[in-house]
């Protein structure tokens, strides 16, 4: 184990999982194995709540298709959505860097306000701190969210069984590529926009249509689809079909240029669903009827090789789809 924190510890990959498992969980006295849920479930006096938190350190603050503010709302709202929760409220914590133009803060706030409206959620509490020049790359944001859970529905990797289908709500890799394209040192103007969007409504529609036949939902953020499917591969394994995975040509082109695998690139407006085989077509129908899910596709299947995620390649070969190490694109969200 490394003696100091590396950038890669924040990558959403194996290094980060290691850090959580070895340092963070034991210190907090967390019970039971890490189940990698995006949000926690609290059952209190007859009410079930989902509770989640997320911090945003994306660089640069503004990128094609979005900004840190929109990301901060959608990221947390989507974490609640993965549990099927109705978002009730968000908290908003700012760490602002001395010297940040007020105009920039205004733009971010406007974006937060718009995103919250879209997501049907209110920011009810917050905090603002300022640190010295050089300490915060403009600004960092933390949002925490509370949502209301239906007691009868539970989504977790433990419910996945062989034969279940894996569905993605749309083309992958948009967000990571959009952010990287405006980083310094990369002389290209991308044809790609971040997909950052609140998915609560789309998820609610899917839940209403097929309810308990959805076994698990996760949004493939850092580490991309590769990391997220590996998180879900606890009680079952997965085989993904490379040819079925939707990727925009511009994302594919950018990935080829930069040497990235789209399966490891972050998304901020996509959801992965694992559903019972008989519910797959209906789920697709419902997703495709929503503007955020028009390119939804079945991309794989669960099987009994627990913990093993494979990719059936376009030539009919097979290889393992690993959780990425986690350093490909730092400061992506």
């Amino acid at each position: 184990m490394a003696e100091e924190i590396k950038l890669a510890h924040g990558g959403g990959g194996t290094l980060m999982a290691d850090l959580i498992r070895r340092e963070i969980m034991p210190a907090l006295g967390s019970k039971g194995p890490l189940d990698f849920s995006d949000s926690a479930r609290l059952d209190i006096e007859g009410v079930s709540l989902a509770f989640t938190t997320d911090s945003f350190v994306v660089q640069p603050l503004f990128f094609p298709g979005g900004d840190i503010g929109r990301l901060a709302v959608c990221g947390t709202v989507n974490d609640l959505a993965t549990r099927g929760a109705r978002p009730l409220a968000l908290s908003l914590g700012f760490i602002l860097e001395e010297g940040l133009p007020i105009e920039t803060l205004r733009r971010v706030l406007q974006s937060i306000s718009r995103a919250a409206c879209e997501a049907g959620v209110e920011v009810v509490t917050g905090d603002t701190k300022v640190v010295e020049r050089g300490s915060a790359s403009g600004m960092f944001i933390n949002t925490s969210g509370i949502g209301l859970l239906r007691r009868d529905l539970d989504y977790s990797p433990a419910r996945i069984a062989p034969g279940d289908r894996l569905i993605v709500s749309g083309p992958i890799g948009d967000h990571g590529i959009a952010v990287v394209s405006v980083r310094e040192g990369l002389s290209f103007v991308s044809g790609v926009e971040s997909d950052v969007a609140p998915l609560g409504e789309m998820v609610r529609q899917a839940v209403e249509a097929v309810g308990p036949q959805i076994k698990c939902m996760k949004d493939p953020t850092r580490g991309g689809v590769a990391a997220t499917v590996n998180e879900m591969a606890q009680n079952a394994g997965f085989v993904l079909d490379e040819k079925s995975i939707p990727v925009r040509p511009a994302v594919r082109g950018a990935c080829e240029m930069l040497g990235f695998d789209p399966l490891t690139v972050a998304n901020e407006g996509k959801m992965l669903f694992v559903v019972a085989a008989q519910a797959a077509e209906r789920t697709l129908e419902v997703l495709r009827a929503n503007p955020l899910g028009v390119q939804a596709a079945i991309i794989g299947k669960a099987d009994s090789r627990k913990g093993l995620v494979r990719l059936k390649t376009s030539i009919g070969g097979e290889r393992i789809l690993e959780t990425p190490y986690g350093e490909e694109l730092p400061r992506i969200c």
Partner: protein
Amino acid sequence: MPENFSTPINAEDLIKLIRELAARLAPRRLKIMEVCGTHTVAAQSAGIRSVLPENVKLISGPGCPVCVTPAGYIDQAAQLAADRGARVVTYGDMVRVPGISTTLEEARRRGGDVSVVYSVTEALQMARREAKRHVVFLGVGFETTAPGTAFAVKAAHDEGLKNFKVLMAHKRIIPAMDALLADPNLAIDGFIAPGHVSVIIGYEAYAPIVSRWGRPCVVTGFTGEQMLLSIVRILTQLVSGHSKVESVYTSRVLPEGNVKAQRFLDEVFVPGPSNWRGMGNIPESGMDLREEYADCDAKGFFKLEEPPDREPPGCRCADVIRGMVDPPECPLFGKRCTPITPVGACMVSREGSCSAFYRFRSVEKWSG
């Protein structure tokens, strides 16, 4: 411009042909080697090994330019950044490569200026913007990448840009292929030749070693289908008892290659001896700056020695690079040596064999 497309003849058909041709050659066991890092990754990513018949083995050769560079080169670059105030500029995957006792990443942590760029032209821009700082570009790569460096050196020279330097480590692939063919322990039956190196040098460049050693050599591109195509061609040649150089990568690769690029290389560089990890010194396999451009040479300017090499104990990078063993045969692979805790360059470089084998592991090798 689709790179992948569907046709009446598909991957399944090619795989079937490979099996039938291999059956014709059985019980002979065949070794086909690719010598391009991008081919290493492409083959693993497409799962090529999982569809090959039992008597056809695809081995990975010294195709990763970072991996074949002596480890001491990294230490030299790190020192220039951390201790000698230079702006060290490099392509993406050099930053975490282990040197003998440090990495560029560590040099950065110690306050050294290390920048990653997509193109050498950005390094030139940096040199133009800050005349007071020395910009040292790490010239690593084969013939695909070297013309870019040559262009930059020429531009810096013509503009009188005194602060632009290159720490040269460019290599030429054919002398290495020659050395590999000369190794009786390797017994290579055919080569898959690098697609984009061949765009520059042309496919006729391989003719001398093909006629000297009598082994088929097929230039191909980087999709799974392209690699399958090249294997069909190599096996077809072997069955019919021929050996010649061919290209299945269309007119992107001309017999004579890119003459303009070769002229650039010739004007700025001259072939010289070079050390390859695992293979020792190979004559004419490196590129040195010509006398007229010596003022761009970082090695001369900063008075650096020839970089030493060192194998970490237990590390079999040298054997992996030569194609003697597959990455999983190294005792450290997947145990002490992983992308998280790399011991050798092969596991860190995005084009290294060990990294490719680890990231895209074949299903049978998964130990669960």
